[in-house]
């Protein structure tokens, strides 16, 4: 298996890379200094646009495109780094922040220079106390060595970065939910339009990027857009951090080029399933991605387009392997409980729909299911999707239910007919 090129994890295994000095030894902040000293902000935006870099948080929206929406002349702009990472099955940002915090900071300096914004915040989820300490230590070091604060590296550009600690709400991973949470209110998403690029944090233009998206920027600046295009597939270039979890021999985070076959990820890198378990299904891109049956995973390559073709999505790249010792109805009950607990309660379809789906799945699980429940679940999930609510959580809640009930219908029918689990 040829060694795959590493971008974000290229110096992951160097001891205490957390320290600024060690990070600079391995080429750290050269890209940032090059950019601040030589290139103009617009060129960076065009460079990132040509590189075809797409957001790594889950939506997969073109980063260059997102930056270009920000009005140039606005006096005050913000860059928010979305480190909320609430998507179950995803833990890539935690490793990035704990072990290489400087890569994120360097990426933020480049991004802030590109959109000319003087202030940036990192919204970290409250549970990641280790990451918060690592980031704050890194920021302290940078401000001491004038890598942050007033006139960075002696250039006229000045930037200060602060860490904002979240308090445990999956909804604050959504762009506008994060913004409202930072404005001191409940983390409830804002009605769009206006989009955050026009009126976001404190009604000022705001760009919200994921930790991994920012960590990739230094490599693109140093090696240019076309080298980046060479890695990965034509439409989704570059590498992606995949988080393998579930009953596999060696779960963990692996940096692989997009378009990497899923089968190799599970069996070669992941070492196959533990014990004599057989593969039953895979959730490819975090909990909200529709599930793939075992047959589909065999032929699947991990990139935005091929997953979308099958009706699933790459999302945040959290690959959750499900073995044949699990009952799908039981898993769906856990999933629907998650979405009912995390729905922010602002829009009616999602607030009531998630609660309703959970109760219906629970009644099937506890042998109170009726034949009418399966079409009911399908109807509820179809009528929660398709822009019916302010943010995408209702689609994220409906997709697993719809895919579980359609692709593993016989398990649900078995539960309803025979009033017990098929295991």
């Amino acid at each position, binding site marked *: 298996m040829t060694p795959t090129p590493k971008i974000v994890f290229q110096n992951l295994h160097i001891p205490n890379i957390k320290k600024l000095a060690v990070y600079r030894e391995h080429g750290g902040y050269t890209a940032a200094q090059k950019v601040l000293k030589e290139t103009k902000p617009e060129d960076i935006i065009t460079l990132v646009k040509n590189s075809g870099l797409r957001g790594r948080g889950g939506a997969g929206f073109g980063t260059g495109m997102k930056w270009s929406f920000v009005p140039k002349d606005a006096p005050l702009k913000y860059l928010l780094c979305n480190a909320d990472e609430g998507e179950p099955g995803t833990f890539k940002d935690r490793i990035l922040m704990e072990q290489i915090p400087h890569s994120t900071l360097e990426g933020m300096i480049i991004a802030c220079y590109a959109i000319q914004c003087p202030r940036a915040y990192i919204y970290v989820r409250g549970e990641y106390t280790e990451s918060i300490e690592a980031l704050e230590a890194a920021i302290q070091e940078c401000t001491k060595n004038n890598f942050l604060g007033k006139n960075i590296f002696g250039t006229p550009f000045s930037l200060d970065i602060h860490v904002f600690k979240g308090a445990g709400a999956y909804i604050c991973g959504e762009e506008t939910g994060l913004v409202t949470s930072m404005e001191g209110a409940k983390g409830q998403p804002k009605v769009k339009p206006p989009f955050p690029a026009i009126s976001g944090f404190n009604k000022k233009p705001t760009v919200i990027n994921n930790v991994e998206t920012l960590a990739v920027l230094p490599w693109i600046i140093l090696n240019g857009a076309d080298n980046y295009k060479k890695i990965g597939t034509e439409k989704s270039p570059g590498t992606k951090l995949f988080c393998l979890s579930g009953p596999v021999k060696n779960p963990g985070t692996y940096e692989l080029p997009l378009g990497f076959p899923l089968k190799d990820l599970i069996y070669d890198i992941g070492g196959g399933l533990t014990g004599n378990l057989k593969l039953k299904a895979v959730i490819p891109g975090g909990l909200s991605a529709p599930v793939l049956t075992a047959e589909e995973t065999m032929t699947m390559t991990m990139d935005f387009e091929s997953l979308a073709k099958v009706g699933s999505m790459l999302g945040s790249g959290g690959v959750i392997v499900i073995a044949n010792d699990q009952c799908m109805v039981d898993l769906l009950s856990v999933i629907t409980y998650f979405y009912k607990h995390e729905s922010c*309660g602002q829009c*009616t379809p999602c607030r009531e729909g998630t*609660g309703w789906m959970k109760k219906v799945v629970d009644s099937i699980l506890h042998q109170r299911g009726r034949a009418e429940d399966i079409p009911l679940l399908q109807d509820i999930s179809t*009528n929660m999707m398709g822009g019916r609510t302010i943010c995408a959580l209702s689609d994220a809640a409906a997709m697993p239910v719809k895919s579980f009930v359609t692709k593993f219908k016989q398990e649900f029918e078995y539960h309803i007919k025979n009033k017990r689990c098929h295991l």
Partner: protein
Amino acid sequence: MTSHSEPKAKNPMVKITADGKVIEAPKGGNLLKALLDNGVSVPHYCYHPGLSVAGCCRMCFVEVEGQPRPLISCNATVTENMVVKTQTETVKNIQKWNLAFHLINHPLDCPICDQAGECGLQNYYMQFGKYESRMEEEKVKKRKVIPIGDHVMLDTERCILCSRCVRFFDEVPKTSEMAIFNRGDRSEIGTYEDKALNNNYTLNSVDICPVGALTSRDFRFKRRVWFLKDIPSICPGCSTGCNVTISQDPIEKRTYRMRPRFNEEVNGYWMCDYGRMRYKHTHRESRISTPLIKKAATLIPTEWDETKHELFTIFKTPASQISVLITPQYTSEDITHIYDFFTKTIGTQNIFHCADSHLASDSTVTDELLFRRDKNPNSQGLLKISAHYKLQEQNLSLFQQKLKSDPWTILFIFGPHDLEAYPEFLSWFKENNSLKTKIYIGTQVKHQIPLFDLLLPTLTFIETEGTFVNFKGLSQKLSRGVKLIPEAKPICEILC
């Protein structure tokens, strides 16, 4: 919550077509407001023209040509020749399903809910719901019957979390007393630790609540709304002159509540709690029901024709002996009739009124929004009419001096309906009873004391037609409701 500032008329009007009908709307204005103003009925709960846009009830979906998916019209802006369709299949299906989501955890409280008959959920269910409920599971139980303040009763289980009341208390009285606690379908509306709401505009939240989550404690279980008839009128509580709708039961002849009516320059969509309780002084039990005459220090109910006879003898006395005192709580028409009658037919000069000119035109607001210090609805009207008749100066202080110095033999008093305006009214006439006869024309039973010789019941603001002139000089029309006291007569019939 993005707040759409309503573009005033200065924005150019643009043509948009809605369901094939071409309508005019201000460019850049709110699409839903444009549709509703032109009679296109689009279901909505959280949108209220006087509040900011929340966009969370998801009922106002419409299809706009050029947009891939239906979008909520309360957050959309009107653009040049936009084509809007509100009756397509997808929109209808969305409305039906969103209504279903609203109703699955809604308690079956219709028999005991005051909002029944004007409830948003009932209206839309009858309009496009009409489906068999597929919800067989347990409903989410929440706290019920929580009094928050002396006017409002809260029921968190009925609440559909449209956040209108939260936005109202944030934006109008700006006290931010209400909030939505917890998260997801355990979210509950309420004040901090159920503390009472203490501002003068709490009952507005009851009007704008589309369901029975917030109900008025004063109207609680009194009457069903489909028995009530609505009468447009003006609030007599103070000189602001808010436009109101009075709800009366024509069969039981009783008034039950007052609600604000939209008027752009006077009171917008709102009204104060003090004004809402003004209908109370029109109830039978607080009114003089028959004409009364004083015989041996006690008041005896008499017939109208006997008082007619009494009045004729009084009118024969020489004009200079008769004087009149008017309180500014009557309609302008009544006041002109009083002035006409006494200056022309009787010919007396001493007509006095209690309107205080500098207080009447004082526009400073004493509470958050609307309430003004002058508690009389028609002071400006009275002042204008008295100036018209060019009698010499006749304000209250002058009347009291004159009363002490050379009292007349006969005094006509047109008493106040709302006693809060003149709490010490009776004390004016106590000291000197050298005055021969005092004829009191008014409504309140509290003034039914042997101090006066003749008491004649007249009509309150709900039963008369006429105009009130507010502090800015804007005269506004009252319309007549059901006559609550059969014996009471309008001013024009008493003085003829």
